[in-house]
């Protein structure tokens, strides 16, 4: 499908497409209705019409049937589906999608930061107690200290495991392919970023 650079061009393309389909559907439905009735001159015929035709001025003779309306509706939806598919491939949509995703992610990160700050403030008493400083009761909490140490050890073990796996991958990759290519296209950067993220989490 061609991509419309100008929104007005896109709108006009949709309009033309919709009307072409709409007209074809109406014509096909009208022809079907005409052949199904004795008159054969229009979408429908009235019981009082003369054989072989209907009165041109009788509005009932040109009343669209539900089938005709359905076909026109379907043609309109076909045109809308084609236009929306075309739009969702356009640079305008992709830019808008990127901007909207960036905005949503920024908001999410800001919310996370805010929540972290609030939780941090709420727990500051416990932290001080854990560090053996001036907690509310002024007594270090050995349970909290132990939990922190264990958590740190678990994270450290996980990081070591990831580092070891990464080293193995790099060693495996190096002899089979040119090293430079592996670093740029084989996922080295991805692993690197994963490692960075884990460190941030710890």
């Amino acid at each position, binding site marked *: 499908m061609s991509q419309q650079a100008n929104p007005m061009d896109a709108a006009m393309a949709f309009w033309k497409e919709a009307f072409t389909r709409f007209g074809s559907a109406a014509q096909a439905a009208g022809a079907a209705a005409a052949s199904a009735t004795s008159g054969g001159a229009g979408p*429908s015929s009235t019981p009082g019409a003369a054989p072989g035709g209907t009165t041109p001025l009788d509005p009932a003779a040109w*009343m669209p049937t539900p089938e005709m309306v359905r076909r026109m509706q379907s043609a309109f939806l076909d045109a809308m589906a084609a236009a929306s*598919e075309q739009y969702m491939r356009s640079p305008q949509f992709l830019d808008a999608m*990127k901007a909207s995703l*960036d905005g949503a992610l920024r908001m999410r990160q800001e919310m996370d930061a805010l929540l972290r700050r609030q939780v941090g403030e709420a727990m500051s008493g416990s932290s001080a107690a854990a560090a053996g400083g001036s907690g509310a009761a002024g007594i270090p909490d050995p349970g909290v200290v132990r939990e922190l140490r264990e958590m740190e050890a678990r994270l450290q073990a996980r990081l070591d495991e990831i580092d070891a796996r990464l080293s*193995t*991958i790099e060693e495996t990759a190096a002899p089979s392919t040119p090293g430079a290519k592996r670093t740029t*296209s*084989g996922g080295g950067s991805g692993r690197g970023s994963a490692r960075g993220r884990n460190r941030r989490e710890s």
Partner: protein
Amino acid sequence: MASATDKESTTDPFTGAARAFAESMSVWMAGMSPAAAAWAEEAKRHAERMAAVPRIVEAARRAKKWATPHDVIMTEGPVRLLRFRGEGPVRHATPLLFVFALVNRPYVLDLLPHKSVVRRFLEAGFDVWMIDWGVPEPGDSVKTLHDYINGHMHRMVNRVLDRTGQPQLSILGYCMGGTMSAMYASQHQALVRNLIMLAAPVDWSCGDCLLKVWTDPQVFDVDQVVAAFGNVPPAYLGGSFNLLKPIDNNIRKWMGFYDRMDDDRFVEEFIAMETWVNDNIPISGAVYRDFVRYGMQRNELVRGRFPLGDRYVDLGAITCPVLTLVADSDHLVPAEQSTPLEKVVGSTDTTTLSTKAGHIGLAVGSRAHKELWPQACAWLAHRSQPAESL
């Protein structure tokens, strides 16, 4: 006649009024012009649809998520291994393991008795198992494809083999589950007797679909998404799938429903399908990142450069018989993304079957159940160990 009268006497006032309206419309239509009669017929149909509303509500209340009884054989956190109970004898000793994608619930393969892929295989005499990946917890966001495939999946394959006493099993993978199954088979070929790939992408350079356009690295930063969300939320995934066909999913579907809402069988199927479509689950962030980056963005799988654990996935290591099932109107995984598998596997026994359906129609479509699944069952039966030889 007596039973019809009894039925009418027990009809609620709403349904009775709607029926009376429809009958009066029929009398009134007798002397109308064809067009007016057609509109009156349309009005009558509206009344019949309105009369169906209480039945629809009742059908929605009755909706269930699995059609076939099963036992949970093993659990690992949210991941479960299921074994289905068939009614007939098991005629093939080689067990069959279903592996679904991580982005949706697996019961679409067992939606309703007459739309259940699980049942088709049970009826054909197979011992059917399934991995239900469950809902990942926030801590699972660091779980990689390696953890799922060489961890959970490998342990569950071993459990199936232990329980059945068989040296090998057959695997049927659907969509992303198919891709994961191919990865598994490439690294554990000795355990896999047959591999069935159902609408599973392996070569993302082929075919033309919106997902490919949207995940282009120029416009989509997968690291940013994973860093912000951890596990990728279901609303994000579901919204993206919905937007792939906005007119069909948001307008045509409901128009179609309104048109046939007095057809009880259609309503039952529609509700079952809607229940599944809206039952989205998050996906582990690390899996999502690997799949998007190495699969959709860099197309590393067919080039033997998709990292899994300490190794790259080598599809050439798959030497078992492979059946590729594709749909000709698949907007999520075009057939062109699945069929290149037969060129890259090491197997000499490869078959591809195509049917007129969409991505989900492969699992629940009437045509697929009538034409595709009997062929797939026959293909697998021919390549499985007969139960008599045990």
